[in-house]
């Protein structure tokens, strides 16, 4: 008899359970909006599967924890308990806690920590069953009379997110009396110390009639970036031993878990779930390809010119099938943007509650698909824009009422295809950009010389400058001024761009345009001397031929030409790339007007060779980055052509201009 190693199923269990948790969260949020009984059933089912799976695969702590949640859900399902805000809140925290457990399970760490234990007690208390533990009473009460002991262990990378532990301390100090003890055990030796990382931890004793929720709210924005436990402090006697152990053990292990989790995630090759219909269509296509190949094979034996048309037809078929096959294969990497949008209902709910604003979130086009790589990298910029929109964009209900607007602000996330790109819009109906404040700030920072005659676009552009923030008070949400430039850089790195449109009093629209995939681009091949360069089609505005007298030379050796009412600089590619034997006279060659980052330049080339799809290959894998070149591709004859980095060239051009 052979034994089955259950560990091999863990990964599938984790994936399915995390999906189940996502479903639970979505259903809970829908319930919060006033949903029906079917939602409760679906939450119950998800919890039940996780409990069953956890017991089967050897995670008894998780099973026990989920059991408590399930009991509570059971009461709701049977109608013995009405679903109300506190219960939704409790269940949402349960979902978060389970996610943490799965993280720890993947990293092979002990599952239960102080947070999960106390949450389990709260769940049990909500069900109405007594749990025989000394700390139960204190824990289940919202406000512990003796105060709280908070163990706060930021992860090394927390500071990089712009979260300042000091600010958290100040907020805590506002709640009650603090006794803070720093834990220095994780501080490395000086030569190994990375000053941009946080190595400290704190044990904080908070005295005062404070509710647990109030403390949790302080840490709300860093909870993913730290190990946190909030335990009631028993005032009379020294805290009972079990509590101390529960606090001390997981915090030590928690740091290790964080580290190993990082290691695990970087090793993880990742997997994609592919719909069976996509696979079927691939199989069909490959079948077609085989048939075409068999047909073309006939010509190998004997070919007489009378069958030329047949051969041509066969080749055309081959080209068609290859192209569809290529598209289908790329399609496997395509995932709906909904997987990124999913996180926003929760984010918007938490954020609007925290800020006391009423926000309605509309999401359109969740089924729009884009490449997995793009998808993974677009999440953070979107989160940032959504936070910004709620924090800065939408007004408080009072202000909205005063402005004659609906008290409930609307935030719309929309994704759709336009041409070969995907467009994501974040639209709010808030106050719009504060033109005066932005100009004042830009003047103060020396970004502009005077506020006179600045167009709205230019004002919008200012907020993307590094270190720019108009928020009078730096909140923990946004306003640190490290945001928008990072958002833009992330998007530009993905080959896209961000545009902003704003009308005072009517709201702000951020439009992010992204390429569908990073692996294949459409490009024009251009000849420069005897070399060939690929210019990405998305960045091309127009190709024009200029007479020699249309070029204005400016001091410093720059050249300008007039295009649609504006003077644009000319970048001679042969000079830029040092090609010999290229055409020198403007009238002999061609100007490709390209656009990126909101800037335009004219690239001077000898001529165009043709349009083609280019599979992007990295130069860096074996060599290094080259300025003005974004990568390489392989031409039909097997030789290599370089792909022009339009955004990089424009940046170089504007730097030159600035200098």
């Amino acid at each position, binding site marked *: 008899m052979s034994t089955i190693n259950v560990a091999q199923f863990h990964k599938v269990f984790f994936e399915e359970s995390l999906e189940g948790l996502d479903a639970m969260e979505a259903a809970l949020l829908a319930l919060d909006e006033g949903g029906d009984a079917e939602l409760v059933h679906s939450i119950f089912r998800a919890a039940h599967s996780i409990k069953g799976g956890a017991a089967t695969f050897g995670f008894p702590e998780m099973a026990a924890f989920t059991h408590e949640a399930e009991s509570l859900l059971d009461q709701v399902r049977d109608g013995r308990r009405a679903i109300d805000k506190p219960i939704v809140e409790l269940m949402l925290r349960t979902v978060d806690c389970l996610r943490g457990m799965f993280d720890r399970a993947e990293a092979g760490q002990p599952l239960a920590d102080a947070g999960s234990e106390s949450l389990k007690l709260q769940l049990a208390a909500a069900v109405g069953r007594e749990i025989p533990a000394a700390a139960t009473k204190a824990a289940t009460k919202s406000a512990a009379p003796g105060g709280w002991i908070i163990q706060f262990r930021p992860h090394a990378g927390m500071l990089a997110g712009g979260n300042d532990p000091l600010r958290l301390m100040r907020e805590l100090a506002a709640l009650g009396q603090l006794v803070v003890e720093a834990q220095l055990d994780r501080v490395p030796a000086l030569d190994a110390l990375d000053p941009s990382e946080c190595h400290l931890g704190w044990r904080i004793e908070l005295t005062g009639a404070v509710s647990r929720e109030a403390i949790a709210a302080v840490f709300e924005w860093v909870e993913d970036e730290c190990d946190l436990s909030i335990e009631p402090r028993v005032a009379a006697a020294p805290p009972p031993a079990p509590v101390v152990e529960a606090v001390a053990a997981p915090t030590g292990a928690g740091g290790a878990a964080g580290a190993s989790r990082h290691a695990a995630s970087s090793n993880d090759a990742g997997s994609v779930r592919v719909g069976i219909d996509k696979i079927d269509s691939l199989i069909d296509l490959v079948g077609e390809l085989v048939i075409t190949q068999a047909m073309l094979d006939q010509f190998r034996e004997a070919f007489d010119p009378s069958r030329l048309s047949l051969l041509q037809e066969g080749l055309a078929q081959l080209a068609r099938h290859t192209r569809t096959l290529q598209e289908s294969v790329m399609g496997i990497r395509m995932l709906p943007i909904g997987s990124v949008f999913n996180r926003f209902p929760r984010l918007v709910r938490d954020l609007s509650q925290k800020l006391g604003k009423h926000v309605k979130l509309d999401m359109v086009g969740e089924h729009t698909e884009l490449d997995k790589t793009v998808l993974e990298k677009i999440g953070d910029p979107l989160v940032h824009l959504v936070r910004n929109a709620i924090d800065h964009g939408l007004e408080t209900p009072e202000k909205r009422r005063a402005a004659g607007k609906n008290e409930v602000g609307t935030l719309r996330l929309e994704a759709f295809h336009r041409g070969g790109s995907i467009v994501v819009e974040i639209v709010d109906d808030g106050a719009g950009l504060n033109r005066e404040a932005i100009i004042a700030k830009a003047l103060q920072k020396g970004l502009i010389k005077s506020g006179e005659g600045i167009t709205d676009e230019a004002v919008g552009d200012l907020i993307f400058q590094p270190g720019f923030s108009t928020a009078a008070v730096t909140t923990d949400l946004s306003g640190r001024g490290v945001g928008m430039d990072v958002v833009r850089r992330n998007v530009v790195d993905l080959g896209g761009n961000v545009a902003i449109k704003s009308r005072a009093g009517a709201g702000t629209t951020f439009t992010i345009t992204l390429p569908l995939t990073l692996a294949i681009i459409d490009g024009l091949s251009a000849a420069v001397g005897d070399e060939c360069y690929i210019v990405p089609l998305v960045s091309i505005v127009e190709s024009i031929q200029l007479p020699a007298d249309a070029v204005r030379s400016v001091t410093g050796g720059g050249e300008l030409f007039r295009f649609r009412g504006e003077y644009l600089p000319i970048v001679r590619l042969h000079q830029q790339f*040092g*090609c010999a034997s290229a055409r020198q006279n403007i009238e002999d060659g061609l100007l490709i007007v390209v656009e990126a980052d909101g800037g335009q330049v004219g690239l001077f080339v000898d001529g165009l060779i043709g349009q083609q799809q280019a599979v992007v290959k*990295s130069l860096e*894998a*074996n*060599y290094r980055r*080259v300025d003005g070149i974004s990568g*390489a591709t392989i031409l039909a004859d097997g030789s*290599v*052509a370089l792909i022009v980095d339009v955004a990089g060239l424009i940046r170089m051009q504007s730097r030159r201009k600035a200098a």
Partner: protein
Amino acid sequence: MSQPSINGSAETQYLTVNLAHEEYGIDILAVREIRGWTPVTRIPQSPHYVLGVLNLRGAIVPVIDLRLRFGLSREEYNATTVTVIITVAGRQFGVVVDAVSDVLDVADDAMRPVPDMGTTVDTEYLKGLTSIGDRMVLLLDADKLLQPQDAQMLEAALNAAGDVKAVA
């Protein structure tokens, strides 16, 4: 890899190549393949000895000319000119030499340090030398041929030049 030979000392195999009438050895385990010379695509802003990149079954591989690398001039690329593809530390690059000649077993204790003798090649790129009969073979240190610091130095130099231009 070094293997014990009959007389007990470890041996390493080297592929020997000809360059300007001298013979050089490249550790054979670093050699991936040998191809006839084919034109490559030039890369802008690269040192003069980096001829360009070629397509090696879908991978983009830089090619350096060993003559130019060592400060010699290259007269022509002819029928015996070959590109030796080398893998060092996970990176591939091609090295253009005049011809390949032989595979040599060199006992590790037969390798001597390179005297600073004013050869055409900077001793920095050599691991040592050995003699086979009346032939002398210079053993190349493949790791140092396409050094990352070269690229960094070049970049720094370019930036400095750019700053000077900007000031001017």
